[in-house]
């Protein structure tokens, strides 16, 4: 099955935000300005704002970059979220044990 492939500027946006914490913070506050800076069309903006699997598939965003994008688009973690266990915390003591 042939799948859509997003224009490179969509992938470039995600990869740039991954490398630049300042740009990622600005994106969380004002995604429209970030989208405009990468020349996104109205349809592309709408699909990115939805962020659903269906929307991202329609746009053709690389699966791995979808995950990165969703993390970038999520609200900044609050104190409670920062204090929550990490994904491997239940195992780390035993994995680190010699």
């Amino acid at each position: 099955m042939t799948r859509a492939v997003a224009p490179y500027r969509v992938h470039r946006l995600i990869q740039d935000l991954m490398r630049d914490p300042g740009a990622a913070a600005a994106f969380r506050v004002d995604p429209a300005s970030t989208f405009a800076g990468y020349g996104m069309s109205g349809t592309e903006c709408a699909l990115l704002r939805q962020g659903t699997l269906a929307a991202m598939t329609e746009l053709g965003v690389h699966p791995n970059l979808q995950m990165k994008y969703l993390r970038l688009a999520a609200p900044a973690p609050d104190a409670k979220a920062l204090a929550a266990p990490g994904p491997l915390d239940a195992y780390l003591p035993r994995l680190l044990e010699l």
Partner: protein
Amino acid sequence: MGRIVGALGMSHIMFPPTGIEEQAERILSHMLEIRRRLHAMRPDLIVLAGADHLNTFTLAMQVTLAIGVSDRFTTLGDGGVPVREFAGHRAFAEGFARFASRRGFELVQAEEVRPDHGTAFPKLVLDPDNAIPTVPLFINAAMPVPPQPSRCLALGEALAAYVATERPADERVAVVGTGGLSHWLRLPDEGRIAEDFDRAVIAALVAGEAPRLAQMDSDAIIEAAGNGGLEVIAWLFAAGALPGARGEAIYYEPVPAWITGMGAVELFAETAAAGKGD
């Protein structure tokens, strides 16, 4: 001549145990069994092959096959794996890059690389005190044009020949391929697990039938096992390092809560075809 003293294939991450506590505990015990088996090989060096997940190598510069040549590596810290440092082995890695170039493989030499969970989690499982120098090998399974499975197997065979002909006497090398098993990540089939495919892969590898498995096209693996399932090409690299070797399944579990099949195999050096990699 050096020796390949064993090969392992293993999934390369775990997720929180919430709701599947018993199964997660079993899988942790399997990970610790993998560690025990690796240490029983008494390796001087580990070659650890797996995929980068668009962290070091991105769509901006797509790298098919790369070898980490640095003296030391600092892991990325993704997936809940702590940021840690481990020793590489420059002489081994650069030597293999040169050797491989005469075997039809031009490996990208990666000096500045932050290994992500695809390397860092297995490294934590295998060698928690970072006592064994480890050469990371990056086999693209995430970007649009991956290497074909047959090439991964052949690269493993080239590694076997390199160790046998160019490495110091008595050097003991363990080879580990990581990733998989079947999972569909952020695709419409997300959540599906191809248990039959996973079990067939494990059965083929432990029966010494990696060459048959390597005849599959990478697109066919993606179709059968999902975009994440393609990571099994790193297992084929490990199998190539012990041509013809038979082995044993360490475990297999489909884990719906983690939307993936998890498994591991060990291939035994004493069952490999003598000299086939030379």
